[in-house]
């Protein structure tokens, strides 16, 4: 099996992703510096993606917290108010 460098792998990833993200029409999306930045990001990710963490609910942010809703004032309809409901 051919061993490919990270830069080569990201070159292939970039080509595919540029098409998926609809950036492939841009000459700039094929700029070699984009691959360079991806290699940098990959080196950064290597520092934490395999860091051992328990499988728990521990998402830090952005945090989604459902908020209660205050109902608008309720005005009973004449039918409901009369109690004449089938």
């Amino acid at each position, binding site marked *: 099996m051919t061993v490919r460098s990270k830069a080569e792998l990201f070159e292939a*990833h*970039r080509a595919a*992703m*540029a098409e998926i*993200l*609809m*950036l492939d029409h*841009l000459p*700039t*999306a094929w*700029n070699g*510096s*984009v*691959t*360079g*930045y*991806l290699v*940098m*990001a990959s080196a*950064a*990710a290597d*520092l*934490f*993606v395999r*860091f051992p*963490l328990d499988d728990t609910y*521990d*998402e*830090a*942010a*952005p945090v989604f917290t459902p908020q209660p809703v205050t109902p608008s004032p309720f005005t009973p309809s004449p039918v409901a108010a009369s109690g004449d409901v089938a």
Partner: protein
Amino acid sequence: MSRPETEHDTPLTATCIAADVAQGRTTAVASVEAALARVADRNGELGAFTDVVAARALTRARRIDAAIAAGQPVGPLAGVPFAAKNLYDVAGLVTRAGSRINLSNAPAGRNATVIERLESAGAVLIGTCTMDEYAYGFTGENANEGPSRNPGDITRMTGGSSGGSAAAVAGGLVPLAIGSDTNGSIRVPASLTGIYGLKPTYGRLSRAGAFPFVASLDHVGVLAKSLADLAISYDVMQGPDASDPVCSTRPVEPVSHVLANVDSHVPALRIALAGGYFRTGALPELLSALDQAAAAIGVSARVELPEAHRARAAAFVLTAAEGGALHLDRLRSRAEEFDPDTRDRLIAGAMIPAEWVIKAQRFRRWFANEVATVFRHVDVILALATPITAPKLGQKTFSFEGQELPVRPHLGLYTQPLSFIGLPVVTVPLARAAGSLPAGLQVIAAPWNEAAAFRVAALLQAP
């Protein structure tokens, strides 16, 4: 006695201006006119402002003077001129966010919350300031707006991304300016220009009306020439705001009184220097200045923030990915209008695998818990704000221990792991030998304990 300012005067502090205006020794109009004259005089050299709102400022100043004449209350910052990074909404102005693309947006319909709050306290907005494009940078350089220049040496960087705000304050154009800090964008320019900076706890100040960069890391903060000005402007900007979902509902916790009582009422604080990661990669002369500052207040103990290098790496990945996602539509349609450096990083960010982002967020929680453990035994931690002094404009690398290292990422070496977990930090200028370039130290506290950081900052600035 009257102390009128002229365009050649060194500006007074915000606290001093407000007292003079409130007590009739000068007027808000005179204060604003003097600031406008300083901007006209020096902005060409410093590249601090993109938009100056002179008519708006003078109208507001006249209202303050009229209120004083009528015996009405005017607020603790009456007549104080201030500036805002140009990512903050100002009603009637297009919110540039350092970008050419944003110039085709409609003008903002209302002011950002923090501008409203400063103006409610009597401060007067003079204009908006240059920044790295979309806040993605540590240098203050911008292909669209030109660079902000360091007032101490205009051939050098201010640092960024709140570079124009730092140039406006350090250059004496205004006593205070609002910035924003995602990975160090207040602390880095404060350090390189020798002024004070505050990045409060994540969620402390409302971001409503600020153009976003990385929602999970963006903070609002302020830069000032004096610690008292930093404190009072922070106090008046606090408070809940439902318009920013991250903004805390905590009540206002003022810190100005802390500075007034720093000698007599400071409870014993446990202070330590950050060791390990935070002492690697810095110029020895800056580490020495930090140690001297710490020794002057009797601090020599050291603590470690575990795995800080991984925290910085995770912040880097989150920044790239969230920034890339935010700007993807603009990248598709208007890529050629980006600053080329910003564009290529954002495109790369848009291609980052989801696993990295999710694991960065999970690591964030772990790191926050570990640092919380450290803060059970220490109240405040000291570290350098930047590992180097201001590089030359356009400088891409610098030599360190026989290696050529990239300038831009290295500037955020010590700030990035701290904003990653939202810690409050006050940046204080380090005492340096005459003729030396400025540098700052970070006074770091546990979340929501800005008061402790201000107490120690006050101790550090005491002679």
